[in-house]
């Protein structure tokens, strides 16, 4: 066991997978000698050489497109996109190719690719460095999407993602890169993709969240005097519908919390799914606490945009007093 923050947990997972499997290679902007702008790949080029940790030209479509070719050619590339705001240029390669190659070729070609991307706000960064596009990729069939909220999960989910035979987008909530440490086993372990985590049990209301918002949810729960169950999805797609619906059937009330804009965010999917599966158990409408349907503001106002304990608390009240 080691006491690690999220950055260190990811770094450890990368080391272990690279040692275990020669097919794993890292590529991206500044991932080499610089160790990535968040130092997630720190020391890896020194350890594994420039053949396995590759600085690429500044071109996101190029990074993902060549990674698709690398994967079709039998390797297990782990490209990094520097910020979620720069996934845009790679959108086409992700959605038109990575997501479709297996179905297009009836599995003759597959794309075992793990795209690592820092995500979300709260670090006082410039524009396009604080967005939350997880719903975009959840809407694209053929890709899995995961987002850890703790160092322990970060390691286990990353190992699962790298070993997964299909493309996975692995979002790293940058706000909690170094926010806290926890015990992380030194041995390799996996956390199944598609399984949520029950953070804490409760009977009055269920909160569903993921990524760094989980921390805000825990703060809200601490401040509340009700018995609240918190589910961290961990996997955005395929969502653990059973975990969510089981909980809501028990509590009858639900708040879903995310940073992304509300319209067509994953919160809508969670709410719609709950309605479909738990209609007769619901005692209040599912409440969404989310970013607004506006551009994530520059950092002076970013904390007003992001769900915080107080807004979550308000939604909890609304759900409980409905």
């Amino acid at each position, binding site marked *: 066991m080691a006491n690690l923050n999220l950055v260190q947990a990811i770094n450890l997972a990368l080391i272990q997978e690279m040692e275990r499997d020669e097919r794993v*290679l890292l590529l991206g902007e500044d991932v080499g000698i610089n160790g990535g702008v968040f130092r997630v790949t720190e020391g890896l080029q020194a350890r594994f050489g420039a*053949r396995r940790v*590759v600085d*690429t*030209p500044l*071109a996101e*479509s*190029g990074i993902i*497109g*060549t*990674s*698709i*070719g*690398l*994967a*079709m*050619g*039998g*390797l297990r*590339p782990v490209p990094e996109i520097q910020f979620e705001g720069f996934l845009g*240029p790679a959108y*086409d*390669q992700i959605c*038109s*190719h990575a997501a479709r*190659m*297996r*179905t*297009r*070729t*009836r*599995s*003759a*070609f*597959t794309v075992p690719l793990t795209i690592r991307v820092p995500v979300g706000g709260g670090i006082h960064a410039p524009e396009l460095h604080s967005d939350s596009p997880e719903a975009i990729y959840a809407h694209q*069939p*053929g890709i*899995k999407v995961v987002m850890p909220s703790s160092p322990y999960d970060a390691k286990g989910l990353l190992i699962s993602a790298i070993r*997964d*035979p*299909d493309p996975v987008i692995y979002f790293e909530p940058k706000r909690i890169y170094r926010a806290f440490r926890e015990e992380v086993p030194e041995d390799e372990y996996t956390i199944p993709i*598609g399984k949520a985590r029950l953070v804490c049990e409760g009977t009055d209301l269920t909160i569903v969240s993921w990524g760094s918002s989980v921390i805000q949810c825990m703060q809200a729960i601490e401040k509340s005097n009700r018995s609240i169950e918190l589910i961290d999805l961990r996997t955005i797609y*395929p*969502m653990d*519908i*059973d975990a969510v619906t089981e909980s809501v059937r028990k509590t009858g009330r639900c708040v879903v919390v995310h940073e992304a804009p509300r319209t067509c965010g994953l919160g809508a999917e969670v709410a719609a799914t709950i309605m479909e599966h738990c209609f007769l158990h619901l005692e209040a409408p599912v409440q969404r606490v989310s970013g607004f349907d506006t551009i994530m503001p520059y950092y002076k106002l970013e904390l007003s945009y992001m769900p915080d304990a107080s807004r979550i608390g308000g939604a909890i009240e609304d759900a409980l007093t409905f």
Partner: protein
Amino acid sequence: MCVRALNAPRYTSVMPIQTVFKAEIERISILDEHCQFDEKLGAGLIPDEDLVRLYEAMSSCRYLDEVAFKLQRSGRMGTYPQNMGQEATSLGAAYALRGDDWLVTCYRENCGLFWRGVPMESILLHWMGDERGNAMPAAHYATPIAVPIGTQMLHATGLAWASKYRGESRIACTFFGDGASSEGDFHEAANFAANLDIPVVFCCQSNSWAISVPQRIQCSAPTVAQRGIAYGMPCMQVDGNDIFACVYAVKNAAARARESSRPTFIEMVTYRLGDHTTADDARRYRDQAEVDLWKLRDPLLRTRKLLEAKRLWDSSKEDAMRQRIEVTVNAAVARAEEIAAPPTSDVFDHTFAQLPPDLVRQRDSLQTHSLAGEQAVHTEGH
């Protein structure tokens, strides 16, 4: 070939004007449209018996085009892009490459793919709206037909990189149109290959048109070949209707790639004799005179003339070949048409290696529904 005569350091003190880079691009032609043959470059490039086979390959691809066109017109196939006029480009490459080099094509390279062994019915099946047409067997080292223009070259770069990573000598050769060379992904693929030393041969099918858009709107420079100069890549132009020139250029490029892991850009100047696809009517935007001119430059025509001049061919051989081709192509069509639509559950089966629970639910719901729905689907489809 692009010559880097000067390789000045980026910061120098020569004042005020210094030439820091020079390049020139050569055009290669070995068998021209008048059946003139250059012995110096051409000798030994393609043995006679191979030339006969290559001619038959082009002819059979051409015949498939005719048949496919009729299939589409009679409602037995969806949109189909004819290859007519461009057969020598991909065939020359497939002939010049090793059988296990990656061939990363677009949709007008049937001739090269068939040479590789990709079955005709796969290509037909694809355009009949069936994914199974794209299930390329591993042995062919061919990637699926690429519908989004200009995107597949990046996969070539990745595939070649994977080989290099493993220390294999396999390279990749990718085909794309002049229109495709306008897409940002082309730039990124070439730039990755050039800067990361990845063994890729970039073959641009420079065929004057991208649907209705003339080449000057894709590339108003004197040549498309000079796009390669941007990356410091060796680059050249060849007569793309000249199977010898295509073989020559790809052979050289492949050798360079294999030996020094360096990419090459080849502009193959050719012409799309048919419509863009069966959904297009080229008479709307181009003159018949232009088409007629290019008909004289047809790669089949000149290859046949050369074979005849070499006394390797005559009209009775042509007739016999035509009969063989008809049998082959018609059999392929029959096989493709025999393949029934897959069950609707097939929509799900290749989404992931393992179907997530909710997709299983969705698939099951479809099955419940399909008894009632099949009827409706059938009616609507016609």
